[in-house]
């Protein structure tokens, strides 16, 4: 049973290089499959090139999903990073 959560990006430059690196690294530390969805496109959250190619701007509403044995933990972990990096809320 997959879990997901929607957050709003508040960083004025959107999801740029450094936070994207942090997000992908965090996602990569879990075994669950993870995706990030923006503007109707769903991308593997463990792919740095995928995440950057979304070009997520400030004000965007994105949905993070996790599916797998550690999905609850994975979702909470990634959402926590988004907040602690000042990326979104």
């Amino acid at each position: 049973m997959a879990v997901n959560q929607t957050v709003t990006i508040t960083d004025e430059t959107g999801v740029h290089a450094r936070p994207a690196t942090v997000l992908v690294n965090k996602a990569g530390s879990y075994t669950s499959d993870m995706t990030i969805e923006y503007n109707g496109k769903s991308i593997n959250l463990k792919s740095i090139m995928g995440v950057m190619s979304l070009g997520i701007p400030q004000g965007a509403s994105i949905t993070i999903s996790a599916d797998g044995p550690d999905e609850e933990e994975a979702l909470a972990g990634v959402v926590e990073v988004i907040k602690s990096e000042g990326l979104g809320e």
Partner: protein
Amino acid sequence: MKQLSGIAASNGIAIAKAFKLAVPDLSFEQRKIENPSDEISRLHDAINTSKTELEKIKEHARKTLGDEHAEIFSAHLLVLSDPELINPMTDKIESEKVNAEVALDAVAQTFIQMFESMDNEYMRERAADIKDVTKRIMAHLLNVTFPNPALIDEEVIVIADDLTPSDTAQLNKQFVKGFTTNIGGRTSHSAIMARSLEIPAVVGTKTITAEVNEGDMIIVDGMDGTVIINPTSDEISQYTSKQEQFEQQKQEWAKLKDEPTVSSDGVHVELAANIGTPDDIEGVINNGGEGVGLYRTEFLYMGKNELPTEDEQYESYKSVLEQMGDKPVVVRTLDIGGDKELPYLDLPEEMNPFLGYRAIRLCLDRDDIFRTQLRALLRASVYGNLKIMFPMIATLDEFRQAKALLLEEKDKLVQEGTKVNDDIEIGIMVEIPSTAVIARQFAKEVDFFSIGTNDLIQYTMAADRMNEQVSYLYQPYHPAILNLVNNVIEAAHAEGKWAGMCGEMAGDSIAIPILLGLGLDEFSMSATSILPARTQIKQLSKEELASYKDQLLSMSTADEVEAFIREKTNQ
């Protein structure tokens, strides 16, 4: 033993083994493979080796250059583990039975093209990251060495065709004792970096990469531009003693660090430094700089995806002013265009960028960008002794417009209740011959002149200073240049203003006596040239040199001028 000569770019002597920084041949053949799973594990091995290597590079960069420079390698590492990149490669090997090189190249090209076609500059730059990373994997697949300057862990001399800013950012001064390149001149990026890292360098040797083998013993003499490949033991001992002399001389120079610059007949001139970032101030102070004669603000605008904000600029200007205390700091407003472009401004490509839309021309047209910089400068002005200089001024009207914008922003700030220094001198950089010719008219309106010789020489001689085929025309001692320089100095003094110089010429041991005789007030140069220049000036008599003025200005060739000065100053 073999000897080459190039352009002496940074003082000092280095003796060490050659480390060739060249991109290896990465061409490959397409093969049908029998066993895809073996081929896939070959690919994974190459990726894993690349990862280990990048981890090492990242650690090196973190230690020697700081977290910020190391960040780029974190992104490279993530690309190496990106399933969206790796899975299509293994799929291709499996389904098409092609070798790993073919799969890697095909998938990489797809991504590179995808990123290159994006309309966001930042994304386009990511294409370069993918290229870097896939080249590294390719090198491991082909079993060829991929050189990494950051991985150097023994004393070497780096040999390269040219060094890019990112190459130089990876150099560790502890191990890289010097470098030498095929191309470049005294004002090319690599030469400027060498001087700020204080490592000896010879550039523009044309053939060094072809002449040297990895591991050859090399001597680099950054003082006269000599490079010796596989020297004899006599040469090694000869250069070792020259190296020791240079070290001793450096210690002698250091004693003059806190002394004013005074000629043998008691005339004081100011020796200032050219800087690019607030971090350079440490070098200015350690080398006894009496001020900053040129703060190139372009670096605030380069290497980013968007214009710097007013606050960002304010912090940098404030930091420089505070660190310099009450010593003068001449800030040059944005000089972009020409050879320094900003991708995010999307400037049209020009046939003749050095004669085109750049510096003050761009700033007066895009006054939104200009006003932001002026506000940041004005706000920072209360923290020190700020002087503002406009670059590439060709007409009085341009100066008047720029000054009017500055005064407008000043009024606005004062009305908003922000404190602004009331005594900011406003001057211009003289690098266009038209301005040098009518300096007298300018002198009535500006507070100072600073002569930018790198451009003034190339515009006066109509010779691109980056083009090696016409580099013989780059003649700082040409009588035409001396007459223009003299005209500017006389014009300034007639109105009670000061004249400085902020090109490479100001730190040149032949030019210094000439300029002192012409009455130049301020000499601004690379920080490391200051102490040698102070030592030289202490031995020169301004009165004597001034007496040669008419003779020098009426000479016919640069050679004549140089020979005359060498004779008079025993050089």
